[in-house]
């Protein structure tokens, strides 16, 4: 088995998936980025700086925590949580943002652009740009821009320009298209800091490289705690960056089983989900070949998930390859299963997982009882849940929060009236 050499490779094809399906104007830009990246990771100074910043800035290593209460409650396997939510900015996204910012700096780029859906990747991008003094523009679908105001505010506080995109559905896909158009019009001075393991070569390989530290840490941590390797790895899959980050180091450990969890939304029989492997087909869009939710003409579909970070019609090409070669199994979690998983983890372990990560928790809840007590599951808590305050309070119809907002608003309006 040599999945690892297939999954990070310079050519950017993973079986028939991946590639670099971009307008000719971007070909040299992508090739330069690929060369710069593969050179950088051979450079001790680059790796040294990355490692140092992980220790001092992002907060690595993150803990691997034995969820004893949850394990006891479910009555099966021992459950371990890799807590990426404790990272600076609250999610694993900072791993590839830091890595790419260092690459951008190395290439002498002065300007960084990014797409964002919920704003997590945009926030992590704005953060590293503030740190490295890079000019930062974040594209965001106009709908997301309106409903994710807190993250827009934080990005602006960090000095980023946030541009609402009014094309199409006004969500993540449109933001990606807008970012690509920006890159096409100013390719030489700009680095496009793409936020997951999607897009044209070299993004899938590069972001996997910067995320694989998650699984590498897990290997030593679980060895310390159990003396062995895990039986199962579980992660949610939007584009696939946190999943590949956890899986990568174990891909060639044949006995380690892996499950990716997609957004089942309101059910995979309807249209309101983002379960590409349940209902999608092979396509080419946004620069790469993979599985997409699309109609029979090849027009990409609108998607839905309770978690903004999983709400995307495409999935990373390496993920499609690992699905096709059956190395990774895929399931999905429904919005309502995600909400109860979120609550269960909070009550049993005192951890608010991001709603994206709660998809992985939902799968753990289904799987653990069927396993033996000496078996182990590691799930990726890719982000922490405080960012989802507005969604969760709405979902739980929290009356107190509603009146709090009303009072805050009244207070604000009164304030502006008198001043």
């Amino acid at each position: 088995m040599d999945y690892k050499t297939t999954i990070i490779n310079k050519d950017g094809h993973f079986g028939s998936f991946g590639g670099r399906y971009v307008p000719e104007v971007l070909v040299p830009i992508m090739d330069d980025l690929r060369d710069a990246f593969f050179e950088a990771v051979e450079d001790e100074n680059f790796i040294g700086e990355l490692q140092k910043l992980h220790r001092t800035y992002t907060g690595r290593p993150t803990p691997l925590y034995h969820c004893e209460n949850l394990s006891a409650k479910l009555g099966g396997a021992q459950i371990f949580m890799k807590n990426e939510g404790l990272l600076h900015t609250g999610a694993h996204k900072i791993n590839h943002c830091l890595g790419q910012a260092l690459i951008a700096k190395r290439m002498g780029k002065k300007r960084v652009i990014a797409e964002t859906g919920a704003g997590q990747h945009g926030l992590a991008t704005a953060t590293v740009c503030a740190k490295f003094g890079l000019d930062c523009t974040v594209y965001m679908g106009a709908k997301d821009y309106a409903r994710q105001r807190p993250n827009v505010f934080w990005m602006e506080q960090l000095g980023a320009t946030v541009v609402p995109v009014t094309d199409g559905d006004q969500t993540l896909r449109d933001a990606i298209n807008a970012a690509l158009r920006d890159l096409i019009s100013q390719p030489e001075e700009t680095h496009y800091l793409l936020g997951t393991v999607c897009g044209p070569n070299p993004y899938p390989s590069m972001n996997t490289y910067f995320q694989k530290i998650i699984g590498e840490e897990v290997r030593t941590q679980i060895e310390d705690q159990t003396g062995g390797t895990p039986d199962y790895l579980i992660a949610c899959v939007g584009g696939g960056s946190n999943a590949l980050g956890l899986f990568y180091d174990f891909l060639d450990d044949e006995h380690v089983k892996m499950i990716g969890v997609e957004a089942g939304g309101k059910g995979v029989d309807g249209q309101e989900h983002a379960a590409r492997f349940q209902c999608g087909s092979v396509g080419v869009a946004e620069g790469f070949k993979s599985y997409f939710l699309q109609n029979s003409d090849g027009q990409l579909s609108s998607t839905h998930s309770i978690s903004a970070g999983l709400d995307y019609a495409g999935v990373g090409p390496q993920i499609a390859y690992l699905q096709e070669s059956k190395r990774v199994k895929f399931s999905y979690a429904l919005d309502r299963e995600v909400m109860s998983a979120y609550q269960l983890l909070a009550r049993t372990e005192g951890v608010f997982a991001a709603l994206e990560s709660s998809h992985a928790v939902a799968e753990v809840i289904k799987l653990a009882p069927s396993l033996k007590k000496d078996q182990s599951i590691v799930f990726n808590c890719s982000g922490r849940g405080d960012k989802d305050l507005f969604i969760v309070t709405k979902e739980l119809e929290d009356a107190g929060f509603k009146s709090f907002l009303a009072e805050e608003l009244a207070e604000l309006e009164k304030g502006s009236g008198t001043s």
Partner: protein
Amino acid sequence: MKKLNSQLDRIQSSGKPGFMMHMVAGYPDLKRSEKIATQILESGAALLEVQIPFSDPVADGPVIARANELALKNGVTVEGSLLVIERIAASTEKPILIMTYFNIIQNYGVEQFCKRAAEIGVQGLIVPDYPYDEEQDNSLIKYSHENDLALIQVIASTSRADRINEIVKHASGFIYCMARTGITGRKTDINLQTIKYLESVRASSDLPMAVGFGLSERSQVQELKNYAQIMVVGSALIKEYADIPIDKGLQQIKKFMIGLIDV
């Protein structure tokens, strides 16, 4: 490719540039887009590039992207687009080319799409997100060739010499040069760098050259006509008939093209 090649010969021997006009099938709707095609062809276009709309048109600027979006909102399908293109092609001796993104072709089936395009009288394909290096798993160059379609290769001003030399090996019909870095639809200033770039492409291939992206004015055509035989006009033309009643739109097309073409 017979119609295409004889038209290219005609342009070459006339000593004047030929115009390839771009439009979106099904924009504003199928019926009206057919009328628009007829008007464009009657107003002096040498070639017509008809785009089959796609949900994620990354290489297009805002004007064309919006036309794609509105066409799809109106329920335009690939089949509907192909039927309109078939009627347009049957109505004219001028070459018709299909422009679309690779996902449309791959969903239809690459071989089937090429066959069908040839059957309905199309002369060539322009697929902006299909660089030749992706041929191995997809065979679009192969099936275009087998069905006597020109698969138009695009060269950008960012393309480097070794890349240009590779691209031209796969070229047929003519070579499409983007006049500047950038997406379609913004005005291009023609400077020394542009001229140098066109000259370097010229030196690498004997095929006729088309130049496009950002063309809207006669003055630009004047500057470019010594370096390329075909002028491509897209967004500027769509702007002429966007959001106005069709009769008015057809008049605008005529007026715009007379202003542009009579060099």
